[in-house]
């Protein structure tokens, strides 16, 4: 009987823990994409500095307020600038970063196409 009650409890509370885990996943994902500005080469998720710990609390609060991931990134961008994001958007400072791989890919593809496929 005791075993049965134990299992009942287990089944009742198990879905809740999954829900909680999902929220934590989201928080971890966001903090992994934020740069700890006062650390060297660490994300907020990895760091245990005062700054990073406060930032984690703020991310939690914003998630509770119902903000989406992108809204949270936008919020930190207005506070700290583009640098806090590991995944920079396309703008005048980063267009080379974004376009160069595509350009190299296209040119390389053209060379391969010309020298191997057209020849045949």
């Amino acid at each position, binding site marked *: 009987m005791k075993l049965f009650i134990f299992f009942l409890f287990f089944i009742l509370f198990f879905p809740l823990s999954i829900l909680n885990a999902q929220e934590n996943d989201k928080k971890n994902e966001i903090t992994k994409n934020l740069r700890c500005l006062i650390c060297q080469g660490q994300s907020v998720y990895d760091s245990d500095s005062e700054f990073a710990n406060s930032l984690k609390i*703020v991310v939690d609060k914003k998630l509770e307020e119902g903000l989406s991931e992108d809204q949270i990134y936008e919020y930190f961008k207005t506070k700290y600038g583009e640098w806090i994001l590991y995944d920079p958007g396309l703008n005048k400072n980063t267009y080379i970063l974004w376009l*160069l791989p595509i350009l190299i890919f296209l040119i390389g593809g053209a*060379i391969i196409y010309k020298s191997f496929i057209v020849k045949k």
Partner: protein
Amino acid sequence: MKNKILPFSVIIIFGIIFFIFYKGLEDSKIYTPDVNTKQEIPLFNTKEFFSGENVKSPSIFDPDKVYLLNIWSSWCVPCRQEHPLLMNLNLDDKLNIIGMNYKDNLKNAENFLKELGNPYKEIFIDLDGTIAIEWGAYGVPESFLIYNNEIIKKYIGPLNQQLTDEIFLLIK
């Protein structure tokens, strides 16, 4: 003709890539936060340091006055160093210094003020550091010059004589 285009374009591509990377070498790699952008001050709720009463941020900042918001903590050594300069700045009537006590033990903070003097018109507390994040602060000490509900200038790290001179000039 066909054979010539290929090496030629390869050289040009490598030339462009070399140029971009060479340019990149010249840029400073040290990240410097933007300190001069005008930003509106954030809204927040907090508690007053001595009384523990709830305060809302608009009641602290009057648009017509010049404020220096100083983030400090009793455990922060550079804060101790800059404290005499804050006492000095407090001599100017035009400037109102507001303190934000950052992640501190209130008893220690009170002792800190008793020992070194209290230059602050008002102090509010930020126990978990989230208000500092709202302000876009990095840590302690940090100071914000505020006028008309806008941040005019940020001072990251402790103030020094040169910076206090600059503040005196700016508020004139």
